[in-house]
């Protein structure tokens, strides 16, 4: 019974993807839709295989993933550090606050012409936009995680003679890490968006670039092939961080409680 009720959502999910692909293929084969606009799954699969064989896919994937890794990695380091400092020292929070708000609501992609003059076309510009998009989310979540720590717990720990280090490891971190990890997950989404969109505008290689490139040539099949790679990438990244999040969920109650 439990196996059955667990298996049926997965089964229905797989079935729904299969039905979508079948309908898509059928609609084109029956001549109800123009393949110039929506292509068809079989053609997209072929184009993916072709791109994989020619090394085009590997190159684009390597460029995009490299930009993602550097941009997101830097934003994790800077974001967590800035968020932690702002959580520890109120004055840092007040200073950072207006800038975080601006960066959070600004259309950062609009800065790409300036970044292109500063850093040059391609990889460095994409990394800069990726960094800026995800760093605000990570800093804000780290800060709110630390602010969520129950001050009563801190006072209690202090009055039992806890040092600053004890406080950090035994009270502050366990209480704030779950929110922080949630911020890291949201940051991944924003970083991925940064990579793809920055590549649409100011790049010479990468998955986003290849979408824009084939878009210019009106080659729908190749565009959709790159788009599907991006969808898969997004799902894999989000799932991976959700798994990490689940690991740290046990911290919510804190060790020894």
């Amino acid at each position, binding site marked *: 019974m439990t196996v059955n009720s667990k298996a049926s959502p997965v089964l229905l999910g*797989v079935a729904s993807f299969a039905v979508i692909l079948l309908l898509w293929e059928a609609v084109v084969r029956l001549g109800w839709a123009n393949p110039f606009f929506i292509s068809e799954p079989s053609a997209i699969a072929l184009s993916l295989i072709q791109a994989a064989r020619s090394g085009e896919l590997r190159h684009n994937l390597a460029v995009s993933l490299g930009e993602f890794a550097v941009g997101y990695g830097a934003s994790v380091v800077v974001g967590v550090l800035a968020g932690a400092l702002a959580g520890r020292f109120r004055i840092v929070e*007040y*200073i950072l606050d207006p800038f975080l708000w601006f960066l959070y609501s600004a*259309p950062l992609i609009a800065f790409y*012409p300036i970044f292109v*003059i*500063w850093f040059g076309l391609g990889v460095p510009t994409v990394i800069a936009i990726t960094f800026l998009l995800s760093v605000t989310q990570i800093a804000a979540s780290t800060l709110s995680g630390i602010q969520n720590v129950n001050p009563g717990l801190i006072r209690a720990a202090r009055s039992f003679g806890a040092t600053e280090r004890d406080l950090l490891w035994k009270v502050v971190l366990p209480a704030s890490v779950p929110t922080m990890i949630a911020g890291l997950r949201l940051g991944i989404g924003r970083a991925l968006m940064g990579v793809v969109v920055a590549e649409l505008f100011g790049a010479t290689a990468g998955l986003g670039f290849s979408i*824009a490139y084939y*878009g210019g040539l009106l080659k729908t099949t190749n565009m959709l092939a790159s788009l599907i790679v991006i969808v898969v990438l997004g*799902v894999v990244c989000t799932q991976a961080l959700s798994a990490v999040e689940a690991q740290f969920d046990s911290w919510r109650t804190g060790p020894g409680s």
Partner: protein
Amino acid sequence: MPGALSSSNARMLISGLAVVVFLAVWEVAPRMGLVDVMYSSQPSRVMAAGLDVLRSSAFLHDVAVSFSEFAIGFPLAIAIGVPLGLLLGMFPVLRYVLDPPIMAIYATPHLALLPILVVWLGIGMESKIAVVFAGGVIPILVNCMAGVRGVERSWVLAARSFSAGKWDVFSKVILPASLPGVILGIRLGVSRAVLGVVVAEMYQSQAGVGNEITRYGSEFRTDYLLFYVLLVSVFGFAATWAVRALEEKLWTAGK
């Protein structure tokens, strides 16, 4: 009470001071030759550019184009996202079928759809409306769904045991209780929709704020570019703030 007041005053003071220092450094650094003013611009130049733009007749047209793209696409996202989200939340089978594709789209950067939407709908307003819709509808749908699923099961059972009909349960229990999720989805959708308008216009367009950003960007007129970026940020901030205020009002009304 005076303690709380003075701490919020200190906050304003320090935040304001940080912004003033930032603006001063930005103004002075190019004058001292530390950075090239063509790359960095200056607050005074951005202000001058802003005044110039506000006086021009094209400005109103651009704002009208961008705003109407937002004002058509986003309500459309609400009109479709909210009912669909409520339906998916209430009927598990429907959810099992549609959840995987929705989650896949949710994990994908929606702006990656831009080039294909331009191929489908052209470079006019239609493709921008579609991007705004795509950006707004998914967070709205997902959070409505979560809102319904978060409704306390015992409330539904209690209503039923007092012989409430299906419609009563929906309109008097499920709908009010899932409202926070609905509003949260709308708030998350707003910023994605605003970004969608601007980036779609930057990509391919004939008019609008994003179009101006690309034009001034390619001419390296940083001061004009920054004014438009500021304009969009203020709009995005204001829209998010408005939804948040509505959210808080509903919370207090609910209590």
